[in-house]
């Protein structure tokens, strides 16, 4: 750049050398010299300098314009035409050069701005929600869409709500020390979510539909397949003429949603004091499709949830007339479902707080 400047004189100097000669000559000279220098310009700054020199208010064209008044109309017309054409040509050349330089500059910037896009990003990654929370939400959403309320109840319960009001008499083995956590204040840790049924019946009154997910407790030793703390989801519907056929409909709908496919279910007799008739609901094994495998213990069926029509005593104990209203109830083992869904073989993981486990969900 230094070199090119020393070789070529400025347009103004060149025009001055030719002072005295005709403006036609000066203009032609300016045009040629400017175009020549323009060709060697490499930056926008240089370009602007050159433009000011050639076309600026102090440049030769402006100078010639100043002397216009001395000319005859004929000369004016001829010179004006020439002046305009040179001016336009140079302006166009500057525009083109500018645009080319801008493009080059952008291209250069883009070349300069290479980064290693494979470098790791900064900042925290999302954590995750407990798998029981996630499954519970799915089921809550399903039942909410079917008009079921989601209810909560306390973890510490009275004997009345946990047992009596569910038609579990004082002599029932479920009340023995080995199953229930009895507490120093005379209460107990709920052994199932069923007390929320009672709270629901008393709070909502018939007709109603409700589910109650939550933490439940059984006083037993913990090992890979037993926990004293686990999760259930209770459901209940009370209306006029609720039948076993309705129960099967809801259970089939529920399970097809949970497993994201059509499931085959079967009901067989099961005994639970708070339902009559009571059932165990089995689903056809999703692993083998019913032909028998280790998961279903070669029976083709997996026992999934207890359910039944609400026992008239249970309705009556919550001031609902069983001659007018009937209902169904079911209890879903959320913990068990989560273990089935993800193939978790150690139940203790769920309460373990180990991020190596929890971060997988």
């Amino acid at each position, binding site marked *: 750049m230094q070199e090119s400047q020393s070789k070529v004189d400025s347009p103004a100097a060149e025009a001055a050398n030719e002072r005295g000669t005709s403006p036609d000559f000066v203009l032609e000279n300016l045009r040629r010299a400017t175009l020549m220098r323009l060709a060697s310009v490499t930056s926008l700054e240089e370009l602007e300098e050159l433009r000011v020199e050639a076309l600026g208010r102090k440049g030769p064209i402006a100078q010639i314009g100043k002397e216009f008044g001395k000319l005859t109309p004929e000369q004016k017309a001829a010179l004006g035409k020439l002046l305009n054409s040179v001016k336009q040509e140079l302006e166009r050349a500057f525009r083109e050069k500018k645009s080319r330089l801008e493009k080059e500059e952008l291209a250069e910037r883009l070349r300069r701005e290479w980064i290693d896009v494979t470098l790791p990003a900064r900042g925290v990654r999302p954590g995750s929600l407990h798998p029981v929370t996630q499954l519970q939400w799915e089921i809550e959403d399903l039942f909410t869409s079917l008009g079921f309320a989601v209810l909560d109840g306390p973890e*510490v319960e009275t004997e009345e709500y946990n047992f009596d009001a569910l038609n579990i008499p004082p002599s029932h083995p479920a009340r023995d020390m080995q199953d229930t*956590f009895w507490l120093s204040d005379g209460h107990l840790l709920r052994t199932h979510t069923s007390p929320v049924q009672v709270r629901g019946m008393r709070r909502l009154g018939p007709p109603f539909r409700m589910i109650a997910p939550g933490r439940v407790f059984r006083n037993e030793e913990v090992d890979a397949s037993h926990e004293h703390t686990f999760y259930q989801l209770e459901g209940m519907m009370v209306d006029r003429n609720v039948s076993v056929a309705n129960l099967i409909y809801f259970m089939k709908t529920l399970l097809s949603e949970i497993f994201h496919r059509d499931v085959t279910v*079967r009901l067989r007799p*099961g005994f639970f004091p708070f339902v009559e008739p009571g059932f165990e609901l089995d689903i056809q094994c999703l692993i083998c499709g019913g032909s028998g495998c280790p998961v279903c213990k070669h029976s083709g069926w997996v026992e999934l949830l207890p359910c039944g029509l609400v026992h008239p005593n249970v309705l009556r104990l919550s001031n609902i007339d069983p001659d007018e209203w009937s209902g169904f109830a079911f209890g879903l083992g959320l913990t068990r479902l989560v273990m089935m869904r993800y193939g978790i073989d150690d139940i203790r993981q769920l309460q373990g707080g180990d991020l190596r486990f929890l971060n997988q969900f």
Partner: protein
Amino acid sequence: MKFSYRWIEEMVEGLAVRAPELERLITMKTAECEGVTPVGEHFASARVARVLTVEALPKGKNKRVTIDAGDGAVHTVVCGAPNVRPELLAVWLPPGTIIDGRELGVAQFGGVASEGMLASGAELGLSDDRSGLLELAGLQPGDGLPKLRADWVIEIDNKSLTHRPDLWGHYGMAREVAAIAGGKLVDPVDMTLLPRGASPIKVQVEDETLCPRYSALVYGNVVVDPSPLWLKFRLESVGLNPISNVVDITNFVLAELPQPMHAFDADKLVGDTIFVRLAKAGEHIDALNGETYELTPADLVIADGAGPIAVAGVIGGAESAISKSTKRIVLESANFHAATVRLTSARHKIRTDASMRFEKSLDAANTARGLARAIALMKDICPAAALVGGVADAGRVPAGVPPIAISLNTIHRKLGKAVGEGRVADIFTALGFGVEKPKTGEFLVHVPSWRATKDISLKDDLVEEIGRIVGYGEITPAPPLVASVPPPSNPIRSYLRGLRLQLAAQGFTEVYNYSFVNEKTAARFGLAAADHIAVKSPIAAEHTHLRRSLLPGLFQNIIDNTRNFRDFRLFEVGKEIHPRAESELPDEVTHLAAVLYASAGDERDFYEQKRVVECAFPAASLQPVEAHPWEHPARTTEILWRGAAIGRLFELHPSLLLEEGLEGRAVLFDVDVDRAVSLAAEGKRYVPPRKYPTSGFDVSVVTKLRQPVAEVETALVRLAGEALVSIEFVRQYAGPPLPDGQKSVSYHLEVGSLDHTLASDEAAAIRGRVIEGMQELGYELRV
């Protein structure tokens, strides 16, 4: 509970269903089966053999034995039994015999080819005796084993039988089988066998609620011997140990009717009266199982003139037990109060085949039936024994349940399926119910005694009978016809969903911790054990009290996860359980607590956690407060949100981590969600965007290094007054040219008016007011 297919088959005439199919039918219609196992397949080829020679092999205990199995050949078997000797009559299982699912062949033992095997009682499924070969008598080589044939054991889940006392015996199951699989039920009991006349013993029942009925018989000339093989096999198959003919007969009746019985050695009894009464304080009994039990006045006992001879319905006494020398026996066939038996059984930790049945509420009609059945078995198995007198029978069969009226319509409504009138009547009849038909579509159903003790009392119970026998698979799923109404909302659950999602998005992983703490873990967070609700019989030492705080659990999570992670974030949503006045349920408060742990952390972690809190609770104000002992004294704040304290944000006191050998920092927050959700409901109101531009200026205030900037900000806000649109912290600076112990805090203020653009002198006036005001407050301003 184990059931013998053959035993059931004997009581169901025309049973056409084999064991595996029967298992499925029982599961679908009656109770849950856990499997069907073939037993005694080896009896088909088992032969009686006489041992000819016994020759010890060079190594080990094994002997080369030759036998005569009645087929004219001499067979060789290798046998290690200590009792093998010439002339012994033993059971030979020849090659080709199927035993326990495998086929016997000719095996080599120490160079000797053994043709099949000689078998012990345990190997044959006739006893649990593995000590030597089963010794036979009165049979010839080549004979088969009399009355023994292959059988199947169907195992049923006890839990699914809790409401069905009648199904704790084969006869009850036979009735079900006849109803579900077809066939005619045959009653094994012949009541005409019961002797008439007075009994030589008297029975005195103290309380008929605890013992509704007590029946007994006396036998003389009893010869106590081992039972015949068929009886041993049958008992062994269903899990009862054969003991002696007399005891085995009582167990047979227990497993058949089901009626638990007990045999006393009559010569060991004191007096001629059997008392059924509550135990007296201080009484004890030496039981058949070799243990001595201290009885309580809540235990029902059978006693003679001297004291307890049995714990009613649970276990007999050792003193009056049947022995080889027993000559006279008293056979007890009684009915006891279910809950009393259960509590006694639980109190003394004795579970017997009898107690398991009694606690289900057995049918009192069975006491006499049990005796009649025992008489038939005694004639067969202990023929020399002679009845002495008649039956001593105290008490009676309690009144059953009144007949239940049920309509065809009720059945249809409850099941969601129509069942024909004839079908309904047939099902009731097959199950032993009496059926009257007052009019079309109506039934009056009489409940038999064996279903009336607790199982059936309502029409809903009858609906189940019809439903299960028809089969629930016959019911077509149908949506109910009900109003479509939106369910009531659950604000706390909706709110928690938002919080959980937000925390997860900010890198926090949700943990579930136990609801339990112990004295030590609670004490770390300033909570005394006495302020907690305690668990009465804790299983684990770390789970003795109900948590009043989520912090002990999270603290453990920190310790555990530092083994695998340098930095992590986690949170829990759970309930704090605070005791309230006696008899009132505790106060359960939902909390959200979160941890941010950094192994090489600094104060930036505090501000990061503060940011998380401010995202979760927008516009929350965090005020410095005095720290608890587990909180960093200079890094603890209270979270104020919408005018209420909802929780705390703090760095964990470094000493807690240092005690665990951890150098990192943990910043936690703990929020009362119940309180937060009550504030969250606050409605929002639209404020129109300003029409006129605002103007801004910066101020830098020099103040003491440890003065909270919030105080500076508060002063600025107050001084700027109504015109203030926003105030933003820009930076703070300490260092030259500021003197030590000083810092400069810069704020940017925007001021404006709702109805016009501020003129430059107006803006300057506000700025001047702020600067002068701050100076008056003693601050130096860098302008």
